[in-house]
């Protein structure tokens, strides 16, 4: 294994230029294009894989931000997504119809305008939940100075509890957000795209760009990056790291909530273990991009999304998560710090 790592290092050393993140982006883009050509008969899979990748990205970016600041793997991220999907299901299926908001089939989409209202409400609800959980659980553990593994285990407990809560309230069956069937877009080269995917892509990209602007332009965003870099130095610079932690939870939870609703739209159904199953692609994307790096998580998520969709051409879709896992292992062997990971 170290041999493999040595070879990549040697290749890097012999390159006539300094290898940097931009080259990696290019390499990944070429890889994705190559994949596209390899499955040219099913370009459709690549395109829809990108949309799936954008949903993975929202969950994975939240997870990687939480890791960057709190230094533990937030195992409940997947179940935050499930919970988000079910809150929207409650709003769209139960609450909104009672006040006459039950329209579906907005333009080319399967859903109606109420979804546009449900998403922000769901996000706000999960933000509250995440901050409450921090105050009630994680902060207490932090103050006791517990091992980081304990924090990860606590989040596993919260994941299971949340899933139990979902099953208790809504039962264990498969549900659907209110929808009407719509025709797919027919594009050249036999590409068929469900119109909903365009919406999913637009929402994800908007959030990713908004987050990028937040992290690079706003004072709190920069304070978050500073805390991820060096928490002690952040504190002696006057940054209240407890506030930073709340912001991190809030952003991670809002992204997870949105990802959950979008996933329910993407797969046209929701069920209690949808988020838990999504955990593997999330971890894959986070590791692939370099743990703690939000831009890496985005590239990692797109790669995982495309790879797992394209793989269904050759292998049974049941094994889709295994593809994500396989990519993760491969990356760990060749480049343990991930694509964008910093060399120590």
């Amino acid at each position, binding site marked *: 294994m170290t041999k493999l790592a040595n070879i990549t290092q040697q290749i890097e050393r012999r390159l006539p230029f300094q290898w940097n993140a931009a080259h990696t982006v290019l390499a990944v883009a070429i890889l994705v294009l190559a994949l596209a050509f390899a499955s040219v008969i099913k370009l459709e899979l690549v395109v829809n894989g990108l949309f799936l990748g954008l949903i993975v990205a929202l969950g994975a970016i939240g997870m990687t931000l939480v890791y960057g600041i709190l230094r533990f793997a937030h195992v409940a991220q997947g179940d935050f997504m499930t919970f988000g999907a079910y809150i929207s299901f409650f709003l769209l299926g139960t609450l909104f119809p009672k006040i006459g908001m039950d329209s579906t089939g907005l333009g080319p989409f399967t859903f109606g305008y109420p979804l546009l209202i449900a998403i922000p409400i769901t996000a706000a609800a999960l933000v509250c939940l995440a901050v409450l959980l921090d105050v009630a659980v994680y902060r207490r553990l932090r103050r006791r100075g517990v091992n980081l593994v304990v924090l990860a285990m606590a989040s596993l407990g919260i994941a299971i509890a949340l899933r139990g809560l979902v099953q208790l309230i809504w039962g264990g069956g498969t549900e659907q957000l209110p929808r009407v069937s719509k025709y797919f877009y027919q594009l050249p080269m036999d590409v068929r795209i469900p119109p909903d995917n365009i919406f999913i892509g637009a929402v994800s990209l908007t959030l990713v760009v908004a987050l990028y602007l937040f992290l690079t332009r706003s*004072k709190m965003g*920069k*304070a978050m*990056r*500073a805390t*991820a*870099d*060096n928490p*002690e*130095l*952040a*504190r*002696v*610079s*006057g*940054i*209240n*790291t407890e506030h930073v932690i709340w912001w991190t939870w809030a952003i991670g939870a809002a992204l997870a909530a949105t990802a959950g609703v979008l996933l329910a739209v993407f797969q046209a159904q929701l069920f209690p273990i949808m988020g838990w199953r999504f955990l593997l692609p999330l971890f894959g994307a986070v590791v692939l991009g370099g743990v703690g790096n939000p831009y890496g998580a985005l590239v990692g998520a797109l790669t995982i999304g495309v790879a797992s969709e394209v793989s269904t051409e050759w292998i049974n879709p049941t094994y889709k998560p295994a593809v994500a896992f396989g990519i993760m292992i491969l990356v760990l062997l060749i480049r343990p710090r991930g694509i964008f990971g*910093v060399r120590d």
Partner: protein
Amino acid sequence: MALLEASSLVAGYDETEVLHGVSVSIESGEIVTIIGPNGSGKSTLLKTLMGLLRPKSGSVRFNGEELVGVPPEKIVRKGLCYVPQTANIFPTMTIKENLEMGGFLRRDDLETRIEEVYSLFPDLTSRRKERASRLSGGQRQMLALARALMLDPVLLLLDEPTAGLAPNMVASVLDRVTSINATGVAVLLVEQNAREALKRSARGYVLAAGQNRLDANGQDLLDNPEVTRLYLGG
């Protein structure tokens, strides 16, 4: 009244006690150097003064105000800034962003202060958009100092700013400390390069095994045969 008066500090990590009753005082505008062998508690002392460690007993008074129990993010507001020995910059952020974080508590005149600090450290000016991790060792220390100056501190706590630097950089960094001091900033300096540091200091303390061993003015410590033998290499 001394600017900073720490008395009988007992502090350490979890089970291990490192400081067994250390006292130091700093007057406004002076440079005070702390020397002592490895493990004598110099860094622990600075961390305790800055609120990163809570002492088991003892007191820290800054301008007459008790600092024990005040978190570091509040202590900086009082005019006490700290440069750790290692990990003293934000490596993935740009030079300019590092300075912005140093001035996190400033409200309106952040840009003006950044320009002032650039003028003190001209090497950094041309590289403001670069990631801090790309800086060389000496420039890194300059950035660390620059970050800590962003809030116009009354007292600067420096933990071995010359550690690991080439000999020619040592003098250059310490000269910078002297010129910062000339603007009225008091400096508490922990140093391995004891001779260079004491030359520039009004007073010095010798710590050994978590206790005060000696304190005197800088020149007297340099002339002291025991100090020479133990800490100044002959």
